[in-house]
């Protein structure tokens, strides 16, 4: 029997988190909860079947600034299994939306959002998540890069290289031989990239 679609709620307001959980569970989703960036990442690390994250940008220890939520987004985007993050926030719309989109948010909802808007975004995110997981099973990796056109192709290419190398190293548990095999490179090239991008085992 397949698991129900699982959502992670990252929200520091206990009452709102409970309410959102109720709304989502009534629609048949399985829900996990976290109240800060660290616990959210822990849940994602131990529950790889989580497909969608509903994220509040303002999280402790800085609940009045988007920094913690944006850091969570950044770390989520580097994960090997595809996760779609929907930002649901009360932060200043203009700047927070731009930052969240830059960091790879799938959708951006402003509090207070209707439950239908939230559910619509969640269903759309799951659709994309399922398709990306199918792609990943077929050996494809979706890489997102923010490239400034004036920086030229070299910068964008290097960023893609770095993300792919990190991705494959994570997937292989930092096994250089297997990573080289998967990327069709020599082991020396992997070592070259490790040095070039400053990749260390613990940050993978």
């Amino acid at each position: 029997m397949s698991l129900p679609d699982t959502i992670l709620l990252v929200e520091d307001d206990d009452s709102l988190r409970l309410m959102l959980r109720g709304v989502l569970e009534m629609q048949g989703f399985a829900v996990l909860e976290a109240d800060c960036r660290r616990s959210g990442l822990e849940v994602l690390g131990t529950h790889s079947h989580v497909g969608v994250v509903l994220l509040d940008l303002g999280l402790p220890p800085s609940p009045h600034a988007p920094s913690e939520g944006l850091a969570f987004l950044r770390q989520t985007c580097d994960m090997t299994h595809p996760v779609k993050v929907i930002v649901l926030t009360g932060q200043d719309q203009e700047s927070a939306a731009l930052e969240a989109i830059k960091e790879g948010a799938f959708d951006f909802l402003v509090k207070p959002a209707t439950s239908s808007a939230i559910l619509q975004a969640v269903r759309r995110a799951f659709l994309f998540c399922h398709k990306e997981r199918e792609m990943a099973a077929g050996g494809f990796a979706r890489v997102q890069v923010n490239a400034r056109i004036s920086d030229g192709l070299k910068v964008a290419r290097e960023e893609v290289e770095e993300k792919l190398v990190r991705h494959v190293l994570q997937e292989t548990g930092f096994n250089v031989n297997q990573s080289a095999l998967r990327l069709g490179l020599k082991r020396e090239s992997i070592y070259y990239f490790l040095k070039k991008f400053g990749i260390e085992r613990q940050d993978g």
Partner: protein
Amino acid sequence: MVSLYSSLILIGVTIMAVMAVLVYQARRQARVNLALLQLNERLRFDLPDLLRQSWPYLARAGVTGLSWKLDWFGTPLTRVDGVVGKDGVSRHLEAGEISLDVTLWHGRHRGEQLYFSETLAENFFLLLHVDMWIKMGGVQGAFGQAAKMELFLQHDMKNIAQFIHLAAEQLEVVKPEQEAGLLATLRAAMPTARVRADRILSALSNKTDAKNKTACPLAGAWQQAADMHGLRARIVGSATAYIAEEPLHSIIDNLLINYSEQSIWNQGHKPASLEIVLSEDEAKATATLSDIHGRPYPWPERLFEPFWSEQSKGLGIGLYQARQLAVGAGGSLEVISADDQPLVFVLNLPR
């Protein structure tokens, strides 16, 4: 010979007379400067009032005219006192949304008279500029405080609004078989929503409710906050303070955030490794906080100054607020800054 003595006496008398005139003028100027300073203080450093009321004092010092054109937060004000002549000293002064063009007129002064006139004008201009900065400092401080309150309310009130929206929508569309589930959700969520609402009201009224005070074990509170900030902390001893949880967490957060931000911004230096020593006596619970990897801090006198921050993104109010909260709870927050030693914060809270 007689003629020589006469000449020497004449020269001496002349020098004394000149000295007497200079001393008289210098004293008169000093009196006017002092009077202007006292007037400014009486007027609570209010620039428009100082401009309006300073003329009699300036006239006493030999100034023949004063004209000024003030742009006071977009409102133009102008005035001329005395006689506008040819020889004037003008200055354009600006600070934030205040700008001033001011000219002091004096007669055809030469020599020492010109010197005294110019000195008086410069002192007067400096006084005006200081008043501008005092006003802008106050305005920026008030805006900073308002911005912080707005941020707080934005976060908490939008959460409350989101909660109410979702609850109302669910009550409208709930199916009979889901009613029990919705009731269970509301029953679980409502108490925390009420706590959140009380917190907003408390912030708006800017009061700490005495009835919320409770015996708080400090070791757990410090450890939890250090974990939240991703800081390594060694806690030695234990103590329990009698304080509401909200201000206690705010004090600890405001203290620790500086260490976590230093870790972020001072890349390349060793990350903070905190030692928190807890102790208590009959009257107070004490927490002594230091970073064993810390470096001496160059501006210890600035630490509790509101709106002073090393970081462009910081409001510079954290430690000020922490001290206010500690004092408000009947305790104190001090910093010890010894030469070549990292800072040591000492937080005393009532038991």
